[in-house]
């Protein structure tokens, strides 16, 4: 049987924020793009960060150029991706354990990086965030915000698709096709069906982030990216509604981000060799919970909902140096032209960077790709709003509750924790037919609340069966696979309330539904 073939201008490998940003930028410039990822979109580092849209404040002392980039990208994304952003604002506070001298350097750095900063009284900070440590000595307001990574990536992809882009999640690059001096495309394998497929591309962008070394190796090129492991813990509700940072040199557990219904504390930074093996450890979790106490007293008594780790793609610009402390590596990004570096044409790697600067990363990569493709179109991603952000209205945490109040009782809630209705589910099914339960989770937040799928997994799997998406075995399997997947992020934080929740969930699955003994 002949292989399916795709002809495209630009093949983008990696469906995280960078790859999605590249696809969106390229589509706006009129290129035909094909975006591929070995899994679902935004399941690598993008889907595993705390959701902070940096003001740049975090880097003003340590990494001023990165701070400056963050500051300007923050402003741009507020214009073009408003629907994905909650304008929480940010606070930098000097806690009793922080060096009080840092605050003045912080203010100075903000000035140098053009980051608007305002010092407020401790009383004003506590009025704004009542659970903040009352023993803080100084507080500064900066334009931090929280941003929904999945929503942003899907918006980029929807925009690109509307302009002809082809998006292939669950397609792994098996090999790159090459002539003597250039990459000409790739062979892909559909992870679900096993089918192979060939893409012919005029130019290929390696946007695989922490995994970009592996992709580059397929073309015989070397990319010195160092994955930096960071763990994050989502707490069951928002203990703060403003991003709160310790006003100190970046360290472990120094930031709490209110994102959607949870607050995420992060993070650590540990160099690792394999970005696929970054499980959090009990010690890291314990340290993170304790670290939260400095910002929010009583933090460690709250209910931890889930723990996970992400792998930052850190790219040390001074090559050849052994990286022992990844915090010392710049958070700026680099575009590597493998023609100049390795003699391999039509192949670029974009790496380093951070979610806040994904648009700029895409632009820089595309500017280079455009030169190779003799394309004169300029980047317009700084001005063209993403789909659903046209109104430039920021996301509001109460939106789903408000919507539910108007829809009930005529649209049954399927996921009660995150307020996903049957209507929402069916709308998602209408957009795309090949959902895994876990993809629906990222798209709709199904199963992301306190019960972690205990009640909704059954409803979703059975609804997909009822509506003909799944056959019997697929539904049975999906249910089990979903809760197994959820268990990964819960097993290490099984204590207190969350442990009790896992027992109730298991009782539902094993005790009531007897999932283990369904007919094969």
């Amino acid at each position: 049987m002949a292989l399916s073939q795709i002809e495209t201008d630009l093949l983008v490998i990696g469906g995280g924020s960078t790859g999605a940003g590249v696809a969106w930028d390229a589509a706006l410039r009129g290129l035909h793009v094909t975006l591929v990822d070995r899994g679902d979109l935004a399941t690598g580092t993008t889907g595993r960060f705390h959701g902070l849209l940096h003001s740049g404040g975090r880097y003003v002392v340590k990494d001023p150029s990165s701070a400056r980039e963050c500051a300007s990208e923050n402003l741009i994304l507020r214009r073009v991706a408003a629907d994905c952003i909650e304008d929480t604002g940010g606070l930098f506070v000097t806690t009793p354990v922080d060096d009080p001298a840092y605050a003045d350097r912080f203010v100075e750095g903000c000035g140098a990086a053009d980051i608007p900063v305002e010092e407020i009284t401790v009383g004003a900070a506590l009025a704004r965030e009542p659970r903040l440590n009352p023993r803080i000595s100084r507080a500064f307001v900066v334009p931090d915000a929280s941003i929904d990574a999945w929503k942003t990536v899907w918006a980029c992809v929807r925009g690109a698709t509307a302009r002809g882009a082809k998006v292939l999640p669950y397609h792994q690059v098996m090999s790159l096709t090459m002539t003597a001096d250039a990459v000409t495309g790739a062979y892909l394998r559909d992870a679900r069906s096993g089918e192979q497929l060939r893409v012919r591309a005029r130019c290929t962008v390696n946007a695989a982030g922490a995994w970009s070394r592996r992709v580059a190796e397929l073309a015989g090129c070397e990319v010195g990216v160092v994955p930096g492991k960071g763990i994050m813990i989502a707490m069951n509700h928002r203990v703060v509604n403003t991003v709160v940072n310790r006003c100190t040199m970046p360290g472990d557990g120094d930031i709490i981000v209110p994102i959607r219904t949870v607050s995420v504390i992060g993070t650590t930074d540990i160099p690792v060799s394999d970005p696929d093996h970054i499980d959090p450890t009990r010690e890291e979790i314990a340290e993170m919970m304790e670290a939260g106490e400095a910002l929010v007293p009583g933090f460690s008594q709250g209910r931890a909902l889930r723990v996970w780790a992400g792998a930052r793609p850190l790219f040390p610009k001074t090559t050849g140096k052994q990286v022992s402390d990844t915090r010392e590596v710049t958070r700026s990004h680099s575009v590597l032209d493998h023609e100049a570096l390795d003699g391999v044409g039509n192949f670029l790697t974009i790496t380093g960077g951070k979610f806040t600067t994904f648009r700029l990363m895409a632009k820089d990569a595309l500017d280079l790709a455009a030169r190779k493709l003799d394309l004169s179109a300029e980047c317009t991603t700084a001005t063209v709003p993403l789909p659903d952000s046209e109104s430039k209205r920021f996301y509001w945490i109460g939106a789903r509750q408000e919507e539910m109040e108007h829809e009930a009782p005529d649209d049954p809630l399927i996921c009660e924790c995150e307020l996903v209705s049957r209507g929402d589910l069916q709308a998602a099914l209408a957009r795309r037919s090949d959902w895994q339960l876990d993809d629906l989770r990222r798209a709709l937040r199904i199963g992301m609340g306190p019960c972690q799928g205990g009640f909704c997994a059954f409803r979703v799997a059975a609804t997909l069966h009822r509506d003909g998406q799944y056959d019997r075995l697929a539904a049975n399997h999906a249910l089990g696979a979903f809760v197994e997947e959820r268990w990964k992020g819960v097993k290490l934080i099984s204590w207190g309330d969350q442990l009790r929740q896992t027992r109730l969930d298991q009782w539902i699955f094993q005790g009531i539904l007897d999932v283990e003994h369904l007919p094969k």
Partner: protein
Amino acid sequence: MSTEALAPFEVRSSLDHCIKCTVCESSCPVAAVTPLFPGPKTVGPQAERFRAGDHSPDLSVDYCSGCGICTRVCPQGVRIAEINSRARAEMKVERGIPMRDQILARPGYMGKAGRPVAPLFNWALANPVVRLLGERIVGVHRKAPVPLAASRSFSYWAGRRRRFLAPRRVVYFHGCSTQHFEPEVGKKVVAVLEHNGFQVLIPKQDCCGLPLQSNGIFGAARRYVERLATQLSVPGTEGLPVIASSTSCGLMLKKEALEILGVEDGHLAEISKRTYDLFEFLLELHERGELRTDFQPVPLTVAYHAPCQQQNQLIGKPALDLLRLVPALRLVEMDRLCCGIAGTYGTKREKYDIAMRVGEPLFADIKTASPDLVACDSETCRWQIAKATGVTAVHPLEVLYRAYGGS
């Protein structure tokens, strides 16, 4: 350190204990009768995760009657009813508080306004045309039970009677209903306490603010309860038991003002620890062997209903325990959760039918028992039950008073 740090945030933080188990949903009397209320979990710990900032996303929390059963039955310790009360207050502040609720929240105004012209006032309240207008214009359901104004207030009576002096003394917190609508209850409370050798101190006192709180008017409610705490802390009464004959007002002092309103008044925190429901106090006396049991037979069938706010004091059913001692009295315990009225909830035009449906099983059981009297410790519940069943409803104290030979 961190436990203390959490204390002011205890109500909201308690949502962390919710494991979505549905116990509260299956016990909620309102969600069982109307789809307009999606249930305590839905508007409580579930919705609370979506609340932040200045704008309230809520609507249906308005249909929570505030009976508090959800908090009582929650095995995980989630402060469901308290979360809901706060959310309702936020919502009402934003959407505006109707004039009707402002009036209902201040029973003292109605009592004071009605007293000088009690006959006319009471005639008007009984007049269907006036009530229909009241429903149309104000929004109080035309069939809702409303109390009649007494022509003399309880404090008027108390201030003019001869003092009974005794070494053992208690403070009596009579509440608005005794003051304005049912002074007879207060007189009998005093008689029973004096019969047991207590000197009853009755400091000047105003409303505890509970109706304001349940109508979402928190600012005024805080002022009211703090004023009351000061009034009840008259010098010379330090450490004395404060006896409440209104169960809902008693619960306000014991718990709700501290938990729901977050009042941090020192007087209140201290008083809450020595506030007793009347029958809780009497039963305790009995358990010490200090209650007079010179009961005369009361040959009546009495159906006893324990109101929600009495149950929420978590003291069991002391009235039932005590009245069991009365000879010839046939007591029938009503094993139902709620009569529906929930303070002022069931008087509102849009909630009257819901409240009646909530109370329906209780009313049916009462009719089956065909008692001579219904006894219930809460005034608004008595009015609701009497109106719905046609059976005279009294404070259980009245039965005890009879047993002591009163008439």
